[in-house]
């Protein structure tokens, strides 16, 4: 193996992880949740780190929980708690909202699994 060969090999091996990072982030890493208040984008939060997000809405604060690459409502000032009952969202395109509080969340990512959610 000439030195030049080795350099080519090293560069090729360096390229590989870049390809994985670029084309494989349809898993938890790289996915985010777009939070809208009153229909307008409020914040985009990564799903990669477990955390809680408090969202100020029309009736009060809704609280979102992010865990293991998924997101859900855990508290909301609405009466029906439909948003909470929607459960965990992980797939790109998954969407739910607390209508009375005017807060909506949508999972966005490189690979969108659903174009719309029917419920």
């Amino acid at each position, binding site marked *: 193996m000439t*030195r030049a060969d080795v350099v080519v090999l090293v560069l090729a091996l360096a390229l*590989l992880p870049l390809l994985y990072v670029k*084309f*494989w982030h349809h898993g938890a890493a790289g996915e985010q949740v777009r939070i809208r208040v009153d229909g307008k984008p409020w914040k985009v939060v990564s799903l990669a780190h477990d955390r809680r997000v408090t969202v100020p809405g029309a009736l009060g604060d809704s609280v979102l929980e992010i865990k293991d690459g998924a997101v859900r409502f855990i508290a909301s000032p609405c009466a029906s708690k439909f948003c909470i009952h929607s459960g965990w969202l992980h797939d790109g395109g998954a969407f739910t909202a607390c209508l009375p509080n005017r807060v909506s969340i949508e999972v966005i990512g490189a690979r969108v699994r659903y174009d719309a959610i029917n419920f």
Partner: protein
Amino acid sequence: MEFSVQPDRTDHRIAWLAALAITIHIAESALPNPLPGVKPGLANVVTIAVLCLYGWRMAAWVSLLRVLVGSLLLGTFLSPTFVLSLAGALASITTLGAASALSAHLLPGRGLGPAGYSLLAAMAHIAGQFYSAYWLFIPHAALFTLLPVLMTLAVILGLINGIITRTMLQRLSPSSPS
């Protein structure tokens, strides 16, 4: 005026090298494929060896003939498989051309060897096949999740083939460059 085509020594050489490559290619096709579209590509050993021994032009001929005749013999001529093979071969020939030219000019005598060429050829081949598959047959973003895997295999197989080629060249003439 008489006009005859006489095959010369170079033509003969190309012919039997191509035949060698084609034979290896067909023999390999008989083996089961671990992954669709991915073959060890042992016939490339011939291509790279030809590149190192006889230069790029010969290697280009051998490679193209291998794809063409190989597809005729296997019955895949003009099929999507053929298109992909051809795209891959063209990509790797072009890359090898550029690589060998650069290598000869910038690093005379100490340039790329069979391992380096084989690696580049394998990666170019897979890239050529992948993109033609994406543009011509499956224009879905989901296809790209395969690319990292295919490229990993290309690097591995390219390296292995390169080492085989190098060993073979050393056996053929112990003093040839490696």
